[in-house]
């Protein structure tokens, strides 16, 4: 037995992240940890790797009891971990990043390390230049650095926290190959995911967590996805049915030959964007993070201005208007970052309602009518089923899903003609995601035009009327959902917009 956990628990003020979790991993086994966001998967992995100290429980490593003193200790034992939000240093080079990971005693000269990196990279087909700054690498390449970092020492257990969430379908496939190669050599792999098809294709065993507890385990090959979903979500919830297509009408929002040069060297250059969004339709844009989504949302919100081209709202150019003027004309935006963009953590829900709401409600001649503002906040809380102690609760103490419902409600309450919606259900529990999806469809059916940017392909197929993808600041063709196969969308996400000339390379190559 490579690893055995016996009754591991971790409590934080206000929640129990893990409650008596037990688990067994054999040598060479690929073991999936399945569960919803917030089920306690990441905390469990961090406890195994020594980043977080368990409150209770035992851990057996190669049949001997151990207490992991910290990540360095875990590494000495032969564990490696690839984090969900990479633990790399962007201003340092690949080699420097790996040097930091190694124990000083293992680390020879930098030249020897470089050689070692290239050797490992070749063995697994993970090409990388050791002298590049990590900040200049794509997300996929950064993940390679994290994996190489683990493989450079003798490794017996590799932990990966949702590794495919940031990859294109092709990159994800390659990763799965690498993991199988590793397992064949006897390395055990712990693999966190909530993508059932991946788990089906890759894993020998799966353990399911719900609300910090083990709710079941299974052999994925012998278990239907529906059964696994039931273990993950509990009995009460059903998966959402597909929605009817929308009542698409005339063109409402139009982008014509938009060109936005980057404002700093981490920004993406938006080129040649053309898009027509109709009344009563949802266009879904797929894409790996960091391919121009942030810039596109900023452009539409009015924070970023184009050097060339036009943005038209119902035929009227709006590219010169500021954020607030656009909102007056019926634009609304749900940003990707709930805290720090969409809401202010240290302000109450009433005040957060005023953040963008003040443009249409509750203010006269520069003065605030707090009664109107509060009433509106209460309405949003009840209509959108926001679980909170009341309108005076700080936004920062709401759960992600509840805050997202509030922000979405705030934007929809503005009765927008066009809603730009970025990652609406990222990190949101199933119940909230269902409600958010229903609200978006309802808004669409009332005749609003919605641009949906998401990394969640299931969500895109569920909601969109037409689909497209962003890659390296460029927009793929946009076609009706029924004409876009998953494979085709994957090609678009990789920048292959035209089958005849698939020379374009993608940022996330």
């Amino acid at each position, binding site marked *: 037995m490579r690893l055995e956990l016996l009754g591991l628990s971790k409590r934080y003020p206000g929640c129990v992240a893990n409650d008596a979790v037990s688990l067994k991993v054999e040598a060479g086994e690929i073991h999936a940890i399945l569960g919803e966001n917030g089920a306690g998967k990441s905390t469990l992995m961090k406890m195994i790797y020594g980043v977080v100290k368990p409150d209770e429980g035992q851990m057996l490593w190669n049949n001997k009891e151990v207490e992991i003193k910290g990540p360095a200790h875990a590494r000495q034992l032969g564990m490696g971990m690839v984090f969900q939000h990479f633990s790399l240093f962007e201003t340092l080079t690949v080699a420097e990043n790996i040097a930091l990971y190694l124990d000083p005693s293992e680390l020879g000269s930098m030249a020897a390390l470089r050689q070692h990196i290239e050797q490992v990279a070749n063995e697994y087909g993970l090409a990388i230049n050791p002298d590049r700054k990590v900040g200049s690498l794509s997300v996929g390449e950064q993940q390679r650095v994290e994996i190489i970092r683990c493989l450079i020492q003798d490794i017996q257990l590799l932990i990966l926290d949702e590794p495919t969430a940031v990859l294109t379908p092709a990159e994800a496939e390659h990763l799965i190959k690498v993991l199988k190669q590793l397992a064949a050599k006897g390395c055990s792999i712990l693999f966190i995911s909530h993508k059932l098809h991946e788990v089906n294709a890759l894993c020998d065993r799966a353990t399911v967590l719900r609300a910090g507890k083990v709710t079941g385990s299974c052999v994925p090959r012998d278990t239907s996805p529906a059964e696994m979903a039931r273990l993950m979500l509990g009995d009460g919830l059903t998966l959402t049915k597909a929605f009817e297509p929308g009542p698409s009408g005339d063109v409402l929002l139009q982008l014509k030959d938009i060109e936005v040069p980057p404002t700093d060297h981490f920004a993406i250059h938006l080129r040649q964007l053309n898009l027509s969004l109709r009344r009563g339709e949802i266009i879904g844009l797929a894409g790996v993070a960091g391919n121009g989504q942030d810039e596109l949302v900023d452009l539409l919100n*009015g924070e970023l201005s184009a050097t060339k081209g036009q943005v038209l709202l119902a035929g009227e150019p709006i590219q010169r208007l500021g954020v607030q003027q656009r909102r007056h004309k019926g634009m609304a935006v749900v940003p990707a970052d709930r805290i720090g963009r969409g809401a202010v953590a240290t302000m109450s829900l009433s005040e957060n309602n005023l953040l963008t709401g003040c443009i249409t409600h509750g203010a006269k001649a*520069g*003065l605030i009518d707090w009664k109107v503002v509060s009433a509106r906040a209460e309405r949003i809380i009840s209509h959108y089923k926001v679980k909170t102690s009341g309108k005076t*609760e700080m936004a920062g103490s709401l759960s992600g899903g509840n805050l997202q419902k509030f922000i979405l409600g705030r934007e929809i309450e503005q009765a927008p003609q066009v809603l730009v919606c970025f990652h609406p259900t990222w990190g949101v529990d199933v119940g909230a995601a269902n409600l958010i999806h229903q609200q978006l469809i309802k808004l669409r059916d009332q005749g609003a035009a919605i641009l949906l940017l998401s990394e969640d392909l299931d969500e895109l197929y569920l909601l969109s009327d037409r689909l497209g993808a962003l890659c390296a600041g460029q927009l793929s063709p946009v076609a009706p959902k029924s004409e876009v196969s998953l494979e085709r969308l994957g090609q678009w996400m990789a920048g292959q917009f035209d089958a005849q000339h698939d020379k374009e390379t993608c940022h996330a190559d």
Partner: protein
Amino acid sequence: MRIEKRLQPSRAMVLLSPVLALVLTLIAGALLFKMLGHPAGLSLYNYFINPISDWYGVSELLVKVTPLLLCAIGLMLCFKGKVWNIGAEGQFIFAALVSGYVSLQLMAVEGFWVLPVIIVAGALAGMAWAAIAALLKTHFQASEILTTIMLNYIALNLLLWGVHGPLKDPDGYNFPESALFADHTLLPLLSEDYRVTVAIYIALLMLAVVWFVLSKSIFGFQIRVMGESAGAAKFAGYKNRLLVWSLLLFSGAMAGVAAVSEVNGPVGQLIPTLNLGYGYAAIIVVFMGRMHPIGILIASFLLGLTYVGGEMVQIEQGMPKSIVGLFQGMLLFFLLACDLLIQYRLVLPGFGPIRLPSDRTKQVAS
């Protein structure tokens, strides 16, 4: 004993923390006096009670409160918007120089408009000095912390140049001081027996105005959003440059009026040492006052007391006057330390968390 994060920041601790900081400062002060061989009780009495034991003492406290409160009103808005204006001192000094110059020019001119002109000149000068920092911040991305500090030193040297050079009193036996201002250029006293001027009314009026702006206006709301989350302010389309400029100009104007209240009040002339560090002390006022109008009113009395108390122990016990800075520094340090208790709480082993009656904690389900 260990600390544990609270589920919700404690509102009670927001108010209790300054009180706790004051108590700790008093304890530390007592130890300090003891160490220096002074009786702790008497020294503390001389520092904090004796100065305000009669009406004259109270009036002298008000003399200090006036410029402190004026500076703090401006800084409160700045800090709410996370514009770190450390330059109230420089704005104060530059405004003193300009309004002093205007006062000297108007020595021989009588008229009801003279005083308003001097006050406006002071306010404009303070704004002009703050405008430099605003320009450097919004158009050249230079950190306002460093630029305002540098401007403080530049303003001080300008004042020294003024009183050593062009503004020196020709009949002043070569002392680096300006001539005494004419009576009609001085702010009217509230009473002939005391040195308190009408400037205290201006300060209270401005305090009320700022309170209204912060609680009732969209503008005040936008300042708060900008301070709490620059990203959210940008997302909502608030005009960052406009806000930064308004904040710096306003606090410059307040520091300018504070300068007039001092130079055309109790001081009555330009002298090289007219700045007692009100611009820096006002920073402490704002933090102690929890960036709330009522709070800074109370805190400006406390900080004013550190000045008059410092003078008292200097006279009574021969302590160096720099004890003022020491007490002010300790206050701010203890305050920042106590503020930990807003986000965290102490847990004593075996006793569980120390609870305040007002703590709204959700029960942990386990």
